[in-house]
C-alpha cells in the first residue's frame, strides 16, 4: 500500500492505496470523481483523459503513485479553470452541447479534455483535418465524430475569442 497525495481540481487529496492503483481508479474511487471513465484498458479509447500538470494524459496509463505531487484537472474541474460561459460551462463544454457533439456521454469527458489540450498545443489554430488527426486517441461509437469535430472547431474559436477578450480587459 502507498500513501498518495496530489492536487485534484485545486484541492489537496491524500489516500492510502494499493501500489497498483491506476490514476483513473484513484480519481473515481478515492476522490469520487466519476466523470473520468474507463473504456478500454489499453490506452486506446481516451475516455479517461485528464490533465496532469497542464498536459493531457490517459489516466489509465499511469499509476496513482506516479502522479503523486502533481496537479490533476478532471472534467469536473474544467469549468472552474478561468473561461466560463454564462451558464457556468467551459467554452469547450458549451460547444459540445451547442453542436450535439455527444450522445451517450461516456466518451465525452475524455473528448472534451483532449479538445482543450488540442487547442493549447495548436496556438496557430485548428482545421477539420487537424482535429480529425488529433482525435486518433479518442474513440466515440455514437456520433460518427461529425459533430464532435464541429464542436471542437467552435470550442477552439470560443476559447480564443474569450482569451482575447480577457487579455483586452486586463
Amino acid at each position, binding site marked *: 500500500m502507498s500513501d498518495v497525495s496530489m492536487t485534484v481540481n485545486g484541492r489537496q487529496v491524500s489516500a492510502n492505496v494499493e501500489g497498483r492503483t491506476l490514476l483513473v481508479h484513484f480519481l473515481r474511487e478515492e476522490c469520487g470523481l466519476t466523470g473520468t471513465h474507463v473504456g478500454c484498458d489499453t490506452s*486506446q*479509447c481516451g475516455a479517461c483523459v485528464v490533465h496532469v500538470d497542464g498536459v493531457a494524459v490517459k489516466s489509465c496509463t499511469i499509476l496513482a503513485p506516479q502522479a503523486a505531487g502533481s496537479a490533476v484537472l478532471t472534467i469536473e474541474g474544467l469549468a472552474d479553470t478561468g473561461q466560463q460561459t454564462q451558464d457556468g460551462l467551459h467554452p469547450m463544454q458549451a460547444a459540445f452541447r451547442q453542436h450535439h457533439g455527444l450522445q*451517450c456521454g461516456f466518451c465525452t469527458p475524455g473528448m*472534451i479534455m483532449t479538445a482543450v489540450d488540442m487547442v493549447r498545443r495548436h496556438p496557430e489554430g485548428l482545421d477539420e483535418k487537424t482535429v480529425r488527426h488529433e482525435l486518433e486517441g479518442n474513440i466515440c*461509437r*455514437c456520433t460518427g*465524430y461529425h459533430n464532435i469535430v464541429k464542436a471542437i472547431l467552435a470550442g477552439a474559436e470560443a476559447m480564443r475569442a474569450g482569451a482575447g477578450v480577457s487579455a483586452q480587459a486586463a
Partner: protein
Amino acid sequence: MGIEGIGARVLRKEDRRFIMGLGRYTEDMVVPGMKRAAFVRSPYAHAKIKSVDVSKAKSMPGVIAVLTGRELKSDGIGNIICGWMIHSKDGSPMKMGAWSPLAVDTVRYVGDAVAVVVAETRGQARDAAEAVEVDYEELPAVTEAVDALGGGAPQIHPEADNNLIFDWELGDRAAAESAIANAAHVTRIRIVNNRLVPNAMEPRAALGHYDKAEDHYTCWTTSQNPHVARLVMSAFYNVAPENKLRVIAPDVGGGFGSKIYIYPEEIVCLWASKRAGVPVKWVADRTESFLTDAHGRDHVSEVEMAFDADHKVIGLKVDTVANFGAYMSLFSSAVPTYLYATLLSGQYGIPAIHANVRAVYTNTAPVDAYRGAGRPEATYLLERTMEVAARELGVSPAELRRKNFIRSFPHQTPVIMNYDAGDYETSLNAALAAADYEGFPARREEAKARGKLRGIGMSCYIEACGIAPSAAVGSLGAGVGLWESAEVRVNAVGTVEILTGSHSHGQGHETTFAQLVSDRFGVPIAQVSVVHGDTDKVQMGMGTYGSRSGAVGMSAVVKALDKVEKKAKRIAAHLMEADEGDIVIEDGALKVAGTDKSVPWFQMALAAYTAHNLPGGMEPGLKEGAFYDPANFTFPAGCYICEVEIDPETGKTDIVQFVAADDFGNIINPMVVEGQVHGGLAQGIGQALLEGTSYDPGTGQLLTASYMDYTMPRADDLPSFQVSTSNTPCPSNPLGIKGCGEAGAIGSPPAVINAITDALGIRDIAMPATPQRVWQAVHGAGQ
C-alpha cells in the same frame, strides 16, 4: 407547436450532466459494503470441465466468496433462454441448448463463465480468479458456421444434431425457382456479412444488492430494457419474483443492441449478493466485452436474382447460413428470420422470393441483434446483388433500381411485410443531386491523372422499425408483446413528468419526449421531466431497440397526452363555464375559442389537485397512462451514395464523399435525427472498411479482443457526412414517425463496397475492405 415543440432543433436537456462529468453510469453506483466480482472464464473454445478447485482462491487476501456453477444450479437458478420460437420447415421447434450462467460440465466458447470471485477490491478479486484451478479436457472447436454444419464437426450441444438450430424458410420456393429458370438474366453471387463486435463505449456492468431485511433484490445494470430484464430474470432464471426485484438502468453509455440481452453476469451478481451477504459489483474490462458481449451479423448467403428482358427483377432466391455462436441469446433467432428475410424485397417490386436460413452453433461468442439486426444483412445482400447485376447488364445502377422501385402503396411483398407508405424516387433523386452523380466521370478522370482510383457506389435501403404489432410478432414466435407504455403526470403546479418504458442510452429521450409535451400544452421543456430506466418508478415497458422509441414509445406518450388533454379541457371548461368543445390550448393557457376567457395551464393543474371545483363526478388529480400497441411495422427508407478514392500503392481507401438521403417520416428533433444518422453511418462504414472479428479457426481464440486488434472507426477514418431527409409520414402511428436509429448502419456498407468495387473494376471484395485486401485486389494477388 412553438420553439420547443415537434420539429424544433432543441438542444438536449441531458447534455449538461454529461459534459460536466456528472453522468451516473452503473459503474459509478456505490452501495455501502459493496464488494467487487471477477469472473473465471474459459480459456478454451470447447472443453469438458473435469473439476473446479476453489480452495486456493478462497484463502487469498480479501476474498469473501468463490462460487461455481454447481452451487448456482443447486440454488435453482435457471438457464438462459432465447425468447423467440422459430420452427424449422419440417415443423420441429428450434434446438435450444442449455446455457447455464456459470458453466457446469462443458464450456463452449472462450470467455464462457465458470466461476465468480467476490472480494474486497477489484485487484483482489482478479488475483483470486486467476487462482481458481479448473481442470479442462479440451475438445475440438469450430468457429465458422459453414464448417460447423459439415459432417465430422464437433457436436456443441447434444440437443442440436450437426449443430443445426433450425432450418427455416420464408416465401415461395417453386415460384422463385421458376422465375430463375425463365429469366433473361440471372445474377449469382455469394454474399458474406462479416461478424462485428458492438463496442458500446461503456463496458457492461452490474451491481447486485440483496436486502435481507426486505428479502428484496436491486440490480443496477447497463440495460436497454430493464423491465424485460426483470421479467426474464424473474420468470425464467428464478432470481426473485418480480415484486421482489428492482432493475435500474441508469445512464447507459451506448448499447447498439448489445445491452438488450440478459447476460450471465447480472444474474450471478444478484445471486452472489445473497450467497455472499454483500452487494456485488462487476464491471467488464474491454477484453471481456469483446469476448462475451453478443456479437452481430456473421451470415454467408448464396443469392440468385432473376431479371426479365426489360431488366425487371422477377425472382430472388437466397440460401443463408447464420452463425449463432455457442448459445442462443435472447433475440438471436428473430434476427436472421423475421428481421431479415422479411426485408428481402427491398424497395423493389419482386413477385417471387424464397429465403432459406440455417442457424448454426459454433464455438464463438453468442450472436444477436446489433444495430440494424437482420436488416443490414438483407440490405447488403440485395444492394450488392443489384450493383453486380447492373454491371452485368451494362446499365446504370441508379436506373436499374429506379426501374424496379415500388411505386404504389400499400404494397404487399411476398415475404410478409406490407409497406404502408414510401417515396423511394425522391430519396434517390435527392442523393444523386447531392452527390453530383452526373459529374462523377470527370472526377474519376481527374483522380486518375493523380494516380488515384476513384469509385462511386449507391445503396437504396428499406428497413422495418417500430417493432411491432404484438399479435403479429406473437404469431411469429415472439415470447413477449412489443407494445410500449407511458404515464403522463401533470403536477399540481403544472410541471409534467413523463414515465416511459422506452430507455435512452444516448438517443436523447429526455429532450425529444419532453418536446411532445411542449408541443401539446406549451409547457417549456425545462418543466418537463422524463423518467425511465427504473422498474420501481416506471410501469412495465419493453425498452429501446429496433428504432422503436419514437414510433412506439412516443406513440404511447401521445395516447396518454390525449387523455390528459381531454381531462384538462373538461376542468378548464368547468372553471370558465364554457363548453368543453370550445376549449383550445395555446401559449400555456386553456382558452375559450373566440373569447378572451382563459385559464393558465398551472391554474387548471392546481384546480385538478385542490379538487374544490371540479365537474361533477370527476376524480381529483391529473395523471393518465396508456399502452400503445403498433398497428404495423414502420418502413424507413432512403438512398446512400459513397464516393471513394483509393491509393493503389498502399491500398488505402479514403471516403471522399458520403451522401445520405433518408425518409424517416415526421421528425421530432432534426438535430437528434442527424446525430443518429451520423453514428449509424460510422458503424456501417466501420463494417465495410475496418471492423473484422477474427477467431483462430483451430483454437477458437478471439484474435481481435482489444482496440489494438479490432479496428474501431476513428475520426480520421471518416468524412463529414452530407445528410438530408424527406418526410413521407408513416400512416400507422399518431406522430407519423418511422424511426431513424439504425438506417445509417443498414444502408451504408453496400454503398461503400459498391464504390470500392467500382473503383477497382472488380466484382466483389470481402468486408472489411482493409488496405491489405484492397492492395491485393489492385495487384491481383488474391487473398
